[in-house]
């Protein structure tokens, strides 16, 4: 196990720069999730960490060693690929033992370590099978087994769950997290799924267009997104954004679309009339007499909660209630955002305005 330091890393393909100076410190034993929409550079960054892509500038160190020019096999990392990349002509045991075989480990040693990994992942009965004879979840576990066997400094996961069905994905998510808690190996995990990021990470790195938008613990990102991109990316259903102006007439308010008044706890200093974006998460609406008038469009019950799509000042918002309100499309209700949980962003830069 060891820490990983990514310092001002850039990557260009020809003249096209895809990573514009990314710095991510990763502590020993941390589970870090790189998350972002496709094309944000997260997979490229992971592949640079693995040594599968060259580093255009900046440094990546594993432990105390700068690995920019270190061969992949000497970096002491193991990677789980999106398509698992299992060797189709090898049994599960041979797949898991391949790296040890290449390092000329003895047969006993290989056997012992493969068995141990198989026990951890409940793969023992499958050791003699070929990848084709396995289900998606089993293949996924073999891919992880191949990584575990090597006992590397760092685990890398490249969207490992995206080929699984929804139910299995949730199960494997828990399994990977449990595995990490057990082995405590430093892990870098790439995904485009913010729920995976939220549920698994010690630290989330939100990437967008080749830069790091924000990093922090899942709840930090949820509670205090640095900018509108992170605010919209983290959380499901996504945060509602309403454009308008800050008003400070004794009491701070936000004047939303078509003059709708929305509550603010405090206004940013000297901001009367400032154009801004008002962000409120769907779960932070309540029904209250002093709320903003809204017309219900669609009601989607999921059992544990109900998603309500409504229009405030002509703009569509979504609210989530755990209570079972009786709403019908066309009903007029008063939705009130919780002022202490409201986010305010600069309209031009998207930067967070309120503390």
């Amino acid at each position, binding site marked *: 196990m060891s820490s990983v330091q990514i310092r001002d890393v850039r990557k260009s393909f020809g003249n096209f720069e895809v990573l514009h100076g990314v710095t991510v410190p990763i502590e020993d034993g941390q589970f870090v999730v790189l998350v972002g929409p496709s094309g944000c550079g997260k997979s490229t960054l992971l592949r640079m960490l693995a040594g599968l892509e060259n580093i255009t500038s900046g440094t990546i160190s594993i432990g105390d060693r700068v690995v920019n020019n270190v061969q992949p*096999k000497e970096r002491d990392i*193991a990677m789980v690929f*999106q398509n698992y990349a299992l*060797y189709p002509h090898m049994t599960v045991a041979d797949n898991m033992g391949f790296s040890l075989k*290449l390092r000329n480990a003895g047969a006993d040693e290989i056997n012992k370590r493969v068995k141990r990994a198989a026990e951890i992942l409940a793969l023992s009965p499958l050791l003699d099978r070929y990848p*084709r004879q396995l289900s998606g979840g089993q293949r996924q576990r073999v891919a992880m087994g191949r990584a575990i066997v090597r006992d590397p400094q760092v685990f890398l996961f490249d969207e490992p769950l995206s080929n699984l069905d929804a139910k299995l994905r949730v199960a494997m998510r828990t399994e990977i997290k449990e595995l990490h808690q057990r082995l405590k190996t430093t892990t870098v995990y790439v995904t485009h799924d913010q729920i995976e990021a939220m549920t698994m990470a010690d630290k989330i790195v939100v990437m967008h267009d080749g830069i790091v938008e924000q990093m922090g613990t899942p709840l930090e990102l949820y509670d205090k997104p640095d900018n509108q991109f992170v605010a919209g990316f983290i959380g499901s259903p996504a945060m509602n954004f309403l454009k308008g102006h800050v008003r400070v007439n004794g009491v701070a308010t936000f004047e939303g679309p078509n003059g709708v008044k929305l509550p603010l706890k405090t206004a940013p200093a000297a901001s009367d009339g400032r154009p801004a974006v008002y962000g409120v998460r769907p779960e932070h609406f309540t029904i209250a007499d002093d709320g903003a008038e809204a017309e219900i469009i669609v009601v989607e019950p999921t059992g544990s909660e109900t998603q309500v799509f409504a229009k405030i000042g002509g703009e569509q918002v979504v609210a989530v209630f755990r209570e079972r309100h009786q709403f019908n499309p066309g009903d007029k209700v008063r939705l009130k955002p919780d002022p202490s949980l409201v986010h305010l962003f600069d309209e031009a830069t998207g930067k967070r305005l309120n503390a």
Partner: protein
Amino acid sequence: MADVAIPRAKPQMSEDSAWTQLKHNRNWLGFWFMVPAMAFLIFFLAYPLGLGIWLSFTDTRIGRVGHFVATENYEWLWDDSIFWLSVFNTLLYTFIASALKFAIGLYLALLLNENMPFKAMLRAMVLIPFIVPTVLSALAFWWIFDSQFSIISWSLRHLGLIDQNINFLGDTTWARICVIFANIWRGVPFVAITLLAGLQTVSPSLYEAATLDGATRWQNFRFITYPLLTPIIAVVMTFSVLFTFTDFQLIWAMTRGGPVNATHLMATLSYQRAIIAGQLGEGAAISSAMIPFLLAAIMVSWFGLQRRKWQQGENND
């Protein structure tokens, strides 16, 4: 489909004439669809093969109906040193040419699978020897290896490496080398392009995974590429061996089996005896003698081609 099924459902089906049944029964319908292909195979493959084997048991000559002579032709061949020389030549030719075609073809395929400029054009160029008609390329080689006008001899002489022309097609060893070279030149594209197709089915992430597992380039080839390529190698080499073993055009155009029968293959000897000399029975016997060798080659690939366990489907054993 519907008008086929309806009469069967009706009670008077048993009263249908045999002809109507032949027209409407699904099994017969299937049979009718197979007839053209079957006829083609019977007339153009099975019949000539059967006739050839039959002829080999007769003393038929051109223009004279033969009589059944049992294994007399084979007994003759058994004591015929030229026949045994042709068997040796064929085996030598097949073995060396196939081995080299495989080695060069695999090398080319690996090379063409790399990223390089003008990849598409290079791939197309590799096919050229395969596209040129055999006889045409054989004639070209005939000139290249000509005793007087050979460009190779000319070049070497002008480089001062030799004093007189090499008698490429007149010397037994040189002649064998030359025809084998020509066969390899012609056969490599087939092997290379087919293996390249096989290489392209190997997922790049397997190489990445192996690289992270610590494999060198050689180990990548040895443990990933080669095992994954074995099924296609088995197919391509079976065809290559069959084509080479039965080769006729190249030899006939270049050497006609000479000098002193040094390049006579079974196919060319058979042609010479059957058509040129008119001894159809004996020629047929030589041709038929190729059958066991070809069957052996097919058996090898049959067992080599048996789907390996890792290729099998979802069953658990």
